């Protein structure tokens, strides 16, 4: 039933797409909001913030993730301003902890309330990272050897921190979640993930 429902959802979306790719569907965003909220009649109050889109989500939805330049610039500026850096200035934590976070997709799913563990980053869902883990997704680019090919440079280390904290600061409407800005991961967790991607000891770079 679950999967059949998925398929029918697909069906609604399949046929007419090719034909209408160019012309924007004329739907009042308020109507879309209402439909989404109506779909969760039993949602507890603390989930309601999930239905509310921030400015960046609104723009990316409206432009189907291809914002015109002015909008893209505005998103980048806004998201850049949201990045918080570690108080001690150190961007690199413990890659072993980072690997655990990269494996874990725990957190913020409907079945994760009340939380029983810390949130994960689920990086493997979208990225290849280490040779040892063969179960990885391909929505994002492979990060195998990422630090090594960049000579473990300081600038790239900072860029990786910023990418994980707020992917859209460098890439407006990126499909990568804004882990720090959306409070999915803490600053310390992000440091551990930076270590996984960038440190010479990490299996990512072996």
């Amino acid at each position, binding site marked *: *039933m*679950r*999967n*059949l*429902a*998925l*398929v*029918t*959802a*697909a*069906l*609604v*979306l*399949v*046929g*007419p*797409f*090719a034909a209408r790719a160019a012309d924007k*569907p*004329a*739907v009042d*965003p308020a*109507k*879309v909001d209402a*439909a*989404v909220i*109506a*779909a*969760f009649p039993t949602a507890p109050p603390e989930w309601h913030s*999930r*239905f*509310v*889109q921030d400015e960046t*989500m609104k723009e*990316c*939805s409206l432009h*189907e*993730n291809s914002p015109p330049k002015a909008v893209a610039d505005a998103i980048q500026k806004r998201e850049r301003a949201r990045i918080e850096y570690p108080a001690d200035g150190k961007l690199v934590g413990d890659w072993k902890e980072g690997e655990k976070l990269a494996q874990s*997709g*725990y957190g*913020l*799913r409907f079945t994760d309330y009340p939380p029983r563990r810390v949130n*994960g980053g*689920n990086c*493997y*869902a*979208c990225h*290849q990272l280490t*040779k040892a883990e*063969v*179960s*990885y*997704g*391909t*929505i994002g680019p492979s990060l195998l050897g990422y630090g090594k090919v960049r000579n473990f440079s300081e600038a790239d280390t900072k860029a990786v921190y910023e990418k994980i904290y707020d992917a859209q600061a460098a890439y407006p409407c990126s*499909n990568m*979640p804004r882990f720090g800005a*959306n*409070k*999915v991961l803490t600053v310390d967790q992000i440091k551990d993930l930076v270590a996984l991607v960038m440190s010479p000891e990490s299996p990512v770079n072996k």
Partner: protein
Amino acid sequence: MRARRVILALTCCVWAATVQTACAQESIGQDNIGQDSTEKAIEKYRHMLSDDPWSNPGLLDVDRGESLWKTPAGPNKVSLETCDLGKGAGVVDGAFAELPRYFADADRVMDLETRLLWCMEKLQGFKHADLIKNPYPRGGQPTKDLGAIAVYIANKSSGMTFAAKLDKPKEKEAVALGHAIFFRRQGPHDFACAACHGESGKRIRLQGLPHLTKPALISSKAPRAEKSQLRG
């Protein structure tokens, strides 16, 4: 209701990948590191299933669904055999391929499960609230009755191409709404359906992601790479 389905799909899909890696890892060799070889190993698994359809657990649901469709049930003690799925009362061959569609009797666009629920209410006399109480099977549980009936009906379109016309005003409205929801980003992970289903050849972990804006062939018995659960 259609919008509800889309959203339900979202809650099902999002992060689905996190729980399903272990067994898949066993079935593909540890030396398969490259993306292409991983893809090939998954493809091989699917072929094994299609070469020997009897190895596909989904067929059990097709049989169960057929018997549920034909057995009198509900307060009115009638079967669903006179249910009109869009091609006339009781016509099941090819019906799924043309859904969703506008139904004048309900004055709304319905997909397969919505229509089946409608028939269970109107023909068999079930109460809507009772029918939708616990719609989804829990992990490891068998497909629900409605799911089994839907699989039976979908199987009667197996091999056909999706061909919903979607040219009536209410159908066009529904498509436009679905389009907007497909790209609507929300929640702590900024997801929209498009993040995972907007391109061909992408995967979450080892689970291949269907490119949903491309027309597809109907195969009502493709199981997931990792579990014996049924899907589209």
